[in-house]
């Protein structure tokens, strides 16, 4: 139920980056990209006080409403970029907003966009070393050969003003009929590569994606499409969504089937995936890796499970937290600014 989303946010110990000075650092805030539950109103950004030393900690500070009627309010970037320009989409509207959040209490809309360079339905946003955003688009306008396939989209590099820099298709004639709709990605500049996942936002194809793709970052050339490892349970590999770089250099991919696929040797000709763990249930959501811990939202237990991935081939559960009897956990995010035990 990707449309039913509740946020979980983590305080994590990490060192603030030097780029912090590029934003106006006054107070500490959460930006919650929000839609109208009744789908009668518009999408808006809620700004919440996240400074534990503040008397208004946890209180709403301001909002910024858009002109977009809520269809399916969806992804933002996973962490605040150094520029303070945040991308966020209403997925079913196929529209992305770019917010200027350098002055958190006075957020502004820079621009918005829909289709870009022949691609539509933007989904996830990852920053490149040059500060631009590499965006996964679920679908492509062009037909031809791809019409006989399970569907394809592409990756598009966009700057903070919403200008297209370059793009590339996820279509791969070596995988006829495969669902190749990019969902999310991880950027690996040290090895000049990008790893993306293919999973659909269309309900009829929720469980049709079973592949990942490796791209060369420097020219966005698609290097390889590969099937994920099918584990003993025959479902943990289904619908790969969020790839994250692990502490061992491997890429860990959360799936809607609640598996963790570990992709190793990404920089080699033959990267290998292995289903290394399966959480209970299905519809697991956005994970976060902190050090050697992977934190996973697990809807069936209405909370979170943390696994230790020190041995990436054999993750071990170290803790879990149930939040209520009904909570459908989905999004996790992290706070790079606060340190220590939180």
């Amino acid at each position, binding site marked *: 139920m990707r449309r039913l989303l*509740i946020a979980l946010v983590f305080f994590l110990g990490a060192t603030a980056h030097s780029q912090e000075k590029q934003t106006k650092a006054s107070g500490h805030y959460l930006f919650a*990209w929000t839609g109208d539950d009744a789908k009668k109103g518009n999408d808006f950004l809620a700004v919440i006080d996240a400074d534990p030393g503040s008397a208004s900690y946890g209180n709403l500070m301001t909002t910024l409403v858009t002109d977009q009627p809520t269809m399916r309010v969806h992804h933002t970037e996973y*962490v605040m970029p150094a520029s303070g320009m945040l991308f966020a989409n209403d997925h079913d509207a196929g529209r992305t907003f770019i917010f200027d959040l350098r002055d958190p209490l006075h957020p502004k809309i820079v621009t918005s966009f829909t289709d870009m360079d022949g691609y539509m339905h933007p989904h996830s946003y990852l920053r490149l070393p040059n500060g631009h955003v590499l965006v996964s688009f679920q679908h492509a306008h062009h037909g031809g050969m791809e019409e006989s396939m399970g569907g394809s989209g592409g990756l598009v590099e966009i700057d903070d003003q919403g200008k297209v820099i370059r793009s590339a298709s996820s279509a791969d004639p070596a995988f006829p009929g495969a669902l190749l709709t990019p969902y999310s990605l991880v950027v690996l500049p040290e090895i000049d590569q990008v790893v993306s996942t293919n999973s659909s936002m269309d309900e009829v194809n929720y469980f049709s994606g079973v592949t990942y793709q490796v791209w060369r970052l420097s020219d966005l050339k698609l290097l390889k499409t590969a099937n994920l490892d099918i584990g003993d349970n025959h479902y943990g590999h289904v619908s790969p969504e969020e790839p994250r770089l692990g502490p061992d250099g491997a890429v860990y991919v959360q799936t809607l089937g609640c598996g963790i696929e570990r992709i190793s040797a990404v920089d080699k000709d033959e990267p290998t995936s292995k289903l290394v763990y399966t959480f209970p249930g299905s519809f697991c959501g956005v994970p976060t890796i*902190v*050090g050697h811990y992977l934190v996973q939202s697990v809807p069936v237990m209405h909370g979170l499970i943390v696994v230790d991935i020190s041995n990436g081939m054999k993750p071990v559960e170290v803790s879990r937290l149930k939040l209520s009897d009904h*909570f459908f956990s989905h999004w996790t995010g992290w706070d790079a600014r606060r340190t220590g035990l939180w």
Partner: protein
Amino acid sequence: MTGSENRLYLVKLDEATGAIQLDMAFHDADGKPGFNFADREWPYGWRGTGVPHGVVFSR
């Protein structure tokens, strides 16, 4: 609300052990842990229940 709550929680992670716990100090005017998106008056003039998805901290 069906199947969930219109609420955003903050969770503390012990980086040494991987233990997690709810941040009870993070709460809205209702006093319950987390931020309540249900049936409230929003600053821009709309009253209703919000559904949050992507959430990001400031730097």
